[in-house]
């Protein structure tokens, strides 16, 4: 069991600050491993309602493992894990069911009235109104990812989990997807956890950037600047994050390829 002393949130809260809303995600001393190796080791995590969190970490550091737990895909036996029931995931590979037309993929598992209308509205919102009846295998990578976003958003989740959703699309499409995700976040306002290995992407989108290392949150950066941001706006934070990821900062800010290459 975790004791109060374990909490890293010991910073004194001044009494003048209004009480923050109860976190929507709350993990305390959460551990997970496969066989002998511990991938996640006594990790604490809070995410506030509507907060946009980015999770950085080296390949194999346990980002997907953590996300699967938040998604409820793995059993949490006895650990202290609070996640909202209303949540949705976008995976790196879109994972559309190839035997269902696009709108049926979006409607998968949806309850309630007007399922088709809601699915189609979500597809229009992500700019796929013209591919409602397409077979998923005929979509381009970017279109498939947008369909996956629509499938997540149509559920109006309180927690949106994105596991490296833009890693496999080309740079131009990625920039469009960033704008789309921000627009959707602004209009629906779910809490978001975006798993990425791209420091610039994290700084562009998130309120808070976490570095997962050694099974714990090794570093945390708050990004307060107004959106839309430009790559290079947060060069100090970028340097610190890269340092915690064990990479010397690339000399020119904006070289998003540097970190990615170092992980290939």
């Amino acid at each position: 069991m975790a004791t109060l002393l374990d909490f890293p949130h010991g910073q004194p809260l001044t009494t003048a600050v209004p009480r923050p809303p109860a976190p929507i995600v709350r993990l305390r001393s959460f551990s997970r491993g496969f066989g002998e190796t511990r991938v996640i080791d006594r990790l604490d995590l809070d995410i506030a309602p509507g907060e946009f969190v980015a999770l950085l970490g080296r390949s194999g550091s346990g980002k997907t493992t953590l996300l699967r737990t938040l998604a409820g895909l793995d059993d949490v036996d006895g650990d202290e894990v609070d996640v909202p029931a209303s949540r949705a995931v976008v995976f790196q590979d879109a994972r559309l069911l190839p035997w269902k037309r696009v709108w049926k993929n979006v409607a998968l598992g949806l309850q309630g009235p007007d399922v088709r209308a809601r699915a189609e509205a979500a597809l229009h919102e992500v700019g796929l109104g013209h591919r409602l009846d397409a077979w998923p295998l005929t979509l381009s990578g970017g279109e498939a990812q947008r369909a996956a976003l629509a499938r997540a958003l149509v559920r109006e989740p309180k927690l949106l989990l994105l596991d490296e959703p833009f890693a496999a699309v080309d740079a131009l499409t990625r920039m469009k997807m960033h704008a789309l995700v921000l627009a959707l976040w602004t209009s629906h306002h779910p809490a978001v956890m975006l798993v990425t290995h791209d420091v610039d992407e994290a700084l562009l989108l998130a309120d808070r950037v976490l570095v997962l290392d050694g099974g714990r949150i090794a570093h945390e950066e708050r990004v307060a600047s107004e959106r839309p941001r430009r790559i290079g706006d947060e060069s100090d934070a970028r340097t610190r994050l890269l340092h915690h990821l064990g990479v010397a900062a690339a000399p020119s800010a904006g070289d998003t390829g540097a970190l990615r290459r170092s992980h290939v």
Partner: protein
Amino acid sequence: MAVPSRSWSSSLMRSRWLSPTLLVLAWELGARSGVIPAHTLAAPSAVVVTLWHMLMSGELPVSLAVSSVRVAAGLGIGVTLGIVLALLAGLSRPGEVAVDAPVQMLRTLPVLALSPLFIVWFGIGETPKIALIAFGSMFQVYLNLYNGICGVDVRLVDAARSFGLGRVGLIVHVILPAALPSLLVGLRYALSVAVLILVVAEQINASAGLGYLINNARDFMRTDIIVVCLIVYAALGLAIDAAIRAVEGRALAWRPRLVEV
């Protein structure tokens, strides 16, 4: 001048029909000149005449119907059993333990070697024939569908689970559609095995059906009737194959190969 005639002759040379046609012609010539005696192999023209008579007399349609009912009954039972067993084995751990090991052992038996046992059990009527066809086709369906279910992409299962699909929803929306191509492959094998078993089972003992016709014809050395029956067996196989293709075309429309982009 020379050009059109050359292209005509070269297109003739390339035609896939050329050599079969020449073969049939040679066969006809051989039969007419007496090189091939009628009790060895009837002439193609004689076969066509016989086919016509057998069609008109109703002998062939009736026999074909009897044989088709045997295939249909055997397949109906075998395919149903195969699907049920594969679902049991593929979708639950206890089912896998209970079903897979015995089925894998039984499938090593050559089905036709069971016919003496089936005759002892079921007599010499329709039952042993249908049972043999059912038994043989069951394994084809079981093996392919079970493999298909085991090979379902767990990432798709995970994704569907994350969208709140329960066990039944997963089976209906993910596992069965994913295993459908394998089921269709199994069905295809099952059908060809069924026709194969039909041929042998009918010749062991039958008082009606295509096999009965062949047996009678053999006793009277009527090679023309034998050839007609062979043609009908081939047509039966082709018809079944075409039916499966039609089902595949509809059921697997989502596959990129078949999608019209």
